[in-house]
């Protein structure tokens, strides 16, 4: 039985450690988005939900205790189960693909799938770095940090600093324009954040409502970007300005069987035509989409020419440029509203967030096929192809 995406929402994306969600937990954030889905889907009851699938890249600490189940309890009720899925930056797309696959296999009829991440609260490599000794002693490059992989890709694919900075500027410019045009307004769920703090020795309290992504730098220029020092490697080209921002965010979609869609009299917005993952050398992690995209195209029986729009996660400008050039993607159709360099990259949330964005942009443009793709830590790529239905 076919599975459909019926709803898709996301939180605004906060700047990690200094933004509005620095003290707002990612399970709470997820719960708000999921309740928003429930409230906006007439006839949908918690009892319809077979499972809540939550992507999360560092499910420990505040994101521990099997955060999928915690979110189901927070957002819905004790009778709805929840599961945590981790494929690092692909997690949010992977959960959607699992939900679709389960429905097509007849294992269920209704799922909430997406992801959430607080990079404010959990360090990038988790609280304890404990790799395998064999690995660490024989092939330590397999454990390379993300910044080092960005440099490795730049070197191998001859990406230069100027192009990276120009790409970063484009990301901010397009994101600012999209914000000005209100193109994210429909998909963003406003988040009420309670704040209690001490100022001048006095307890203070307020509630703020966050409605917009916080990472966009409208005032940035090529000159300002060019001045930044390499963030990772001596003599490197990846900087804080041309790398994705660390962020906090949550995004979820409602995936439903054809039967249930009809029963509740809902309108599907898209279907997942294909979704594939692939492995690559971990040192060249950023090139992962190049291996995943052909697999997804083949699954869908499409060619690159059929793809109208692409959301390519901008982990780093180096890898985004390398992927665009290696795959032959049309740069003008990639990240038309900016990408993670401007809008942020809340790891486990990103796949769902990019999906949500592409549904709306396909609709706005009246286009059919959208590709969501990302490189994945540990040397992987993911590519999902959506067909817009309404």
């Amino acid at each position, binding site marked *: 039985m076919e599975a459909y995406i019926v709803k898709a929402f996301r939180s605004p994306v906060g700047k990690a450690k200094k933004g509005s969600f620095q003290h707002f937990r990612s399970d709470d954030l997820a719960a708000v988005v999921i309740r928003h889905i429930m409230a906006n889907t007439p006839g949908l009851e918690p009892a319809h939900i077979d499972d809540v699938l939550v992507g999360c890249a560092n499910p420990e600490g505040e994101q521990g205790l099997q955060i999928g189940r915690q979110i189901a309890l927070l957002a819905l009720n004790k009778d709805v189960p929840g599961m945590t899925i981790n494929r690092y930056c692909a997690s949010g797309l992977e959960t959607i693909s699992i939900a679709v696959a389960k429905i097509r296999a007849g294992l269920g009829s209704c799922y909430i799938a997406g992801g959430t991440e607080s990079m404010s609260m959990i360090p990038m490599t988790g609280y304890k770095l404990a790799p395998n000794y064999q690995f*660490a002693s024989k092939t330590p490059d397999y454990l*390379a940090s993300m*910044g080092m992989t960005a*440099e490795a890709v730049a070197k191998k694919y001859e990406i230069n600093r100027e192009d990276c900075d120009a790409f970063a500027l484009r990301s901010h410019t397009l994101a600012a324009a999209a914000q000005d045009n209100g193109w994210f307004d429909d998909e963003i769920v406003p988040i009420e954040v309670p704040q209690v703090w001490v100022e001048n020795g006095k307890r203070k309290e307020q509630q703020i409502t966050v409605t917009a992504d916080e990472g966009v730098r409208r005032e940035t220029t090529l000159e300002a970007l060019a001045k930044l020092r390499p963030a990772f490697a001596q003599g490197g080209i990846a900087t804080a300005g041309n790398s994705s921002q660390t962020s906090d965010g949550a995004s979820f979609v409602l995936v439903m069987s054809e039967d249930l869609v009809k029963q509740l009299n809902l309108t599907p917005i898209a279907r997942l035509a294909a979704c594939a993952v692939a492995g690559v050398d971990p040192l060249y992690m950023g090139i992962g989409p190049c291996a995943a995209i052909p697999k997804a195209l083949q699954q869908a029986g499409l060619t690159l020419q059929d793809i109208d729009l692409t959301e390519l996660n901008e982990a780093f400008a180096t890898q985004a440029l390398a992927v665009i050039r290696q795959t032959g993607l049309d740069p003008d159709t990639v990240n038309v509203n900016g990408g993670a360099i401007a809008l942020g990259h809340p790891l486990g949330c990103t796949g769902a967030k990019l999906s949500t964005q592409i549904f709306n942009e396909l609709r706005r443009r009246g286009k059919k096929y959208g590709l969501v793709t990302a490189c994945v830590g540990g040397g992987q790529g993911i590519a999902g192809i959506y067909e817009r239905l309404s």
Partner: protein
Amino acid sequence: MRRIQHVAVLGAGVMGAGIACHLANAGFQVLLLDIVTPGLAEDKQSNPDARNQLVNRALAQSIKSKPAPLYQKEYANRIQTGNLTDDLHRVKDCDWIVEVVVERLDIKQQLFAQVEEHRRPGTLVTSNTSGIPIHLMTEGRSEDFKRHFCGTHFFNPPRYLRLLEIIPTPDTAPEVTQFFLDFGANYLGKKTVLAKDTPAFIANRIGVYAMARIYQLTEELGLPIDVVDKLTGPALGRPKTGTFRLGDLVGHDTAAHVIEGIRQNCPTDEQAATFQIPAYLKFLLDNKFLGNKTGQGFYKKVDEKDEKGRSVYHILNLKTLAYQLPEKVTFPSLEAGKQIDDLGRRVNMFFEHSDDGAKLIQKSLLGLFAYASNRIPEIADEPYRIDDALKAGFAWEAGPFELWDMIGLETGIKRAEAAGETIPAWVQDMVQKGHSTFYTIQNGRRYSYQPSSGTYIEIPGQSSTIQLDYLRHQAPVYQNDEVVLHDIGEGVLCLEFRSKMNAIGEGILRGLQESIQIAEEGEWKGLVIGNHAQNFTVGANLMMIAMMAYQQEWDELNMAINLFQQTTMRCRYSNIPVVAATQGYVFGGGCEAIMHCDGVVAAAESYIGLVEVGVGLIPGGGGTKEFAVRISDSFREGDVQVNTLIDHFKTIATAAVSTSAYEAYGLGYLQPEKDQVVLNLEQHIFEARARVLALAEHYVQPIQRDDVTVLGRGGLAALYAAANELKLGKWASEHDIKIARKVAWVLCGGDLTGSQNVSEQYLLDVEREAFMSLCGEQKTLERVQHMLQTGKPLRN
């Protein structure tokens, strides 16, 4: 008793901000005020942040400057800022108010009038002026204000230059003057010198004379400036900058201002003619070639590198006023001086030569003797005050009267008079009275001649210091080529390193073992390890290691490393307390030794680090083992352990050196429960002795540890991954990674398949084996050789 807690610093220029930072270093709550940001737009005029922008920027700039004005960046939290218009009332909460505003009497007087409106009676007020008579500043002020007012003259940069001149006015209460003399020494770590209210006070008056005289002699003798800098730098026991490069560093506008000030304000000075701006200096001033701050002065850096990759400098030819490449001029005396370590012998040697270099030194020193002695009692009552000021303010190894003592009082008089200098009656009178030196030493204390009484007086401040130099008349308890063991009183011994740069060789290791044994077997309460050299120690004697490694004498090398380990272990495992007193570099083997002591009393200016990685080795004298112990001791139930491990690993793997003693706590070299910091460099051995005495009351020899938790493979995996990051990021070479992996190996106890408790001796064995394996590496030997030849680390 007067106590200081809150201090206001008025004026946030280079000096004001620097003073504020040093007061923060000393633990005071500082209020730094300057004028409201000028030229504010209408809408910003009531915005406090905008109004304080000037002071905030000035402070931020100071904090960023090098060398760092703060012991630790976090100490900036101790400084609050504000402006003189909105916040001056806050001085009512201050115990001391320091004025450091622009050098204009009317502005200062006006400010003091405003300060008086808010100041509490009894609050101390001082001015940091370097050129305005102190007594003029309090005109119109109340009696209470005048009684609590004096000059406190810091030197730039305030953290690093040790001199603090205290200048009372006739109205200053004697208790206030005495308070600052003690407070400056005990709380700010300064050498305080009582100065009179005379132009430029002591240090600048004499120091600038010395500079002006050398400027004059250089022209007379037609010498190139770079050669004069060599002659008047380390050869004369003065900083490497010598004379002309120091001028470039200070700035010629500033220097000229001081020279002019003295010339105008001291019309009766017999050397007034020396305080003239020479034509070549005028040339620099006219062209705004003011020194380092304008990119050129006497020296000009050109866009070239020499064959060794060093920047090339051109020098100003004083005759042609053109810049040119320095010619390789030298003199027999200058060459001979390089072979003589002792300053006294070197100075005497210069009087035995007759080349132009020697002549310059002779004439400048004899002029200095005459000038300094003629300033008593004009600027100071006793010679020691002048010597102290020059040593602490200009970083001279010896002041004029100490240099004179090295030559001999009578010889000095004769030579000076032969050179046309006039020596004052009080000096002639000393000879008549049968005295032969300005200083004498008795019972470990130093005495200075006092012209007014014709007797020797004990120099004040010695009740809280121990100077090993003043103990040299007593027979050492023990000595060898590299150490002297002193009896420093109250049953405590002090082991002084005496090797070249205090490098730790076999003599020091044996000396340490012997000293501990002597203390254990005799009636001694404990041992201090300390000295007064510029650097506590530069680390192990690399030459010794290199020789054995080159000749592949592995058994000997193994024994030598074992001796090193057993010696540092003895510092902890003996039945007497052992306390180290450090200053300057505390590198490598020195750091390993102090980490094993029962306590460390570190002068704030201690630069501590396990730097072995820089020469291709790992700490092999127990230092890596000790880090493993400290890592283990910091584990808490349930914590993830690996983060502590990575932090400590990085410290050794990057050869991190603390930029102050306080920073050494964060790096794990010092520990809060057993180690302490003193601001005053002269007090560290005294404080170390006090610590030994306190520990000796209840001292029990510690038991060797067999409960050191190491993480084995689990930890190694994390460290290997971390080390690989350094390589991928080009922060480290392949050989760096090889060394880093050895460090990891020791810290984790090797490739144990699980976390386990091990003994210190097991870790020492692992450490020694890792050290030895690196000694067999060609690239390590290249690093060692490079360090021995150039004094700089090689990255290969």
